[in-house]
């Protein structure tokens, strides 16, 4: 909200913005007291009295936070137990993932996301697992923050095509298709992710043919993909609803059939409109990857909890979780600013209508 600035001098600013009315003055003073009460102890604990390096908890004798648990195990936090001499492959995989996401950022490439996304992710998996001359690295060695990024991006890119199909299906006039899509979307959105994860770890083996076994990471990926596809379906549905009916009419007038109308005319526009909602959905999914440790994956939380369970690091749980929280905050806050910028850019485009409903 833009309010006209009444005056320019600092004192006038303070009066207008902090002490405009008696009630304002009370609020300001109360908040100042709150700040004085909260900030100094936290600053003392987290920075001034903190210990930054050390081999065990014993090194932390200054009374403040013990960040040594993070610095001592930073490599595991970053890339789990991936072999040290193969770490460049993790870096390469990250670049491939970034390339997979690129079409979301460049609006004229948006239409390629449904193909480029899954391909980029598949390439990242190939590099990590080992193809051709690269040595095999089992998924049990993958871990750390990189695993969160991998599962987040992979879940997103694999679920996008499924989500598009579900969204189209939900708008279909064919009752069976519509019914199946609605049932799937509402069912997945109605239950907590943690029950779906439990389902994957206990039920998938039950439903599989006798003797078949699944990689733990693959199981997690299946669940995350299906989970995310239901939420993406709602994001894309908002975009589909926002494409003007006249576009479909014009396509039909040009003699395009229903399939080509959808693929060539409606979908590219709908995807472009839904990008902010898709990015928001990705932020949610990325945050949800911190739950994967419950099925024993060694993502950054899994690695951190392993460190905290170590006798050498007893009682530094708060530091460990605060660090993970901070890392995710930086990533998600950056993404949310980006999503907001995309939204502003989209809304400036006159030829595109805003979605009527934008699912959270």
């Amino acid at each position, binding site marked *: *909200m833009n*309010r006209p600035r009444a005056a320019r001098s600092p004192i006038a600013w303070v009066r*207008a*913005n*902090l002490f*405009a*009315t008696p*009630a*304002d003055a009370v*609020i*300001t003073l109360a*908040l*100042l007291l*709150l*700040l004085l009460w909260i900030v100094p102890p936290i600053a003392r604990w987290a920075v001034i009295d903190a210990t930054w390096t050390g081999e065990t908890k014993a090194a932390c004798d200054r009374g403040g936070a013990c960040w040594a648990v993070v610095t001592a195990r930073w490599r595991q936090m970053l890339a789990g137990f991936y072999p040290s001499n193969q770490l460049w492959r993790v870096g390469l995989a990250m670049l491939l993932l970034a390339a997979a996401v690129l079409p979301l950022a460049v609006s004229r490439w948006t239409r390629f996301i449904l193909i480029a996304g899954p391909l980029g992710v598949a390439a990242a998996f190939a590099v990590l697992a080992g193809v051709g001359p690269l040595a095999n690295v089992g998924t049990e060695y993958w871990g750390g923050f990189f695993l969160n990024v991998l599962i987040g991006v992979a879940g997103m890119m694999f679920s996008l095509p499924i989500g598009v199909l579900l969204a189209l299906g939900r708008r279909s*006039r*064919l*009752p*069976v*298709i519509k019914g*199946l899509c609605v049932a799937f979307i509402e*069912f997945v959105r*109605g*239950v*907590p*992710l*943690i*029950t779906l994860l*439990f*389902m994957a770890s*206990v*039920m998938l*083996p*039950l*439903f*599989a*043919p*006798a003797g078949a076994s699944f990689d733990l990471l693959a199981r997690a990926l299946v669940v995350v993909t299906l989970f995310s596809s239901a939420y993406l379906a709602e994001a894309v549905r908002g975009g589909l609803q926002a494409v003007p*009916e006249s576009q479909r*009419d014009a396509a039909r007038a040009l003699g395009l059939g229903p399939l080509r109308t959808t693929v060539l005319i409606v979908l590219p526009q709908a995807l472009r409109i839904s990008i902010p909602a898709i990015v928001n959905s990705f*932020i949610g999914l990325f*945050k*949800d990857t*911190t*739950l994967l440790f*419950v099925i024993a994956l060694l993502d950054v*939380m899994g690695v951190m909890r392993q460190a905290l369970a170590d006798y050498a690091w007893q*009682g530094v*749980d*708060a530091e460990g*979780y*605060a660090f*993970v*929280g901070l890392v*995710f*905050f930086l990533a*998600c*806050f950056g993404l*949310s600013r980006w999503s907001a910028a995309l939204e502003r850019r989209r809304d400036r485009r006159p030829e595109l209508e805003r979605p009527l409903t934008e699912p*959270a």
Partner: protein
Amino acid sequence: MPRSRSRSVAGGWPALAAQALLLGLVMLAVLWLTRNAATNLQARGIPMGFGFLGLPAGFDIPQRLVPYQPSDTHFRVFLVGAANTLLVAGLGIVFATIVGLVAGVLRLSRNFLGRALATVYVEGARNTPLPVQLLLWYSLMLAAPPPRDAIQLLPGFFLTNRGLYFPTDTIPRLEGFGFTGGASLSLPLAALLLGLIVYTGGFIAEVVRGGLQAVPKGQTEAARALGLKEGHVLRHVVLPQALRVMVPPLASQYLNLTKNSSLAVLIGYPDLVAVFGGTSLNQTGQAIEIIAMLMAFYLAVSLSISAFMNWWNSRTAVWERRT
């Protein structure tokens, strides 16, 4: 949106055939999965069906609203867990709404400090994963001192490593090694509530902000021109109108909070997922039945919340017509 031209209903026979084929495939898949499950369960010696609900559970549950003892059945465990989940969800929804309302209003206030602090809170709460927040709150609370050195948060509110004590009709008092009087929340419950309230409060604040911004400026100006005080402008003119815009996103936040309460299992609060989906499942091995019941419970709660919010929505809509 009604279509100007309609093709033959439901797309003619090719569409019909495709749908029949799809339905057939789905049914085949279900059949195949059921057969696999039956074979696998037989191999492990686990009977199918809900007979296990009548068997004694044999484990204790530290916190319960429903009377329970270890000799009670697994169905009783389900009830105890469900009540614990509803307790957290109910309290969480009430307090998260209050926090969200305050933060949302502050974010739009004229007061720079209020605006800045509300922004820091909202962005921080929304962009940090809830599982991490819960574990952080819980580990901080576990590090609280024992009762004799209890931290007094507010007059009558004591935080100890045994729980959070607060006044009811009596004020909690230190006696020997513990507190008497008042009431207490166990640490897992307190941490779970705090995490859910802080996290969801941040999202509700954004809903509130969106709702307030949707009310035309002329409404505020007209109310001020009538000589209403700022508080009254907010309470009697802006909020009632903003509420209508806020109801659908608010409903989805309430649903999220209820679903997120299942993260209780991370910090040992005995909610439905922890006791029924955890302990009962481990003891009986009835994964399919138990997870089906869990999902049915959450779906039922989701549907009730949307039904309630729809009813509330229609009520607020009627108010508009009267004015």
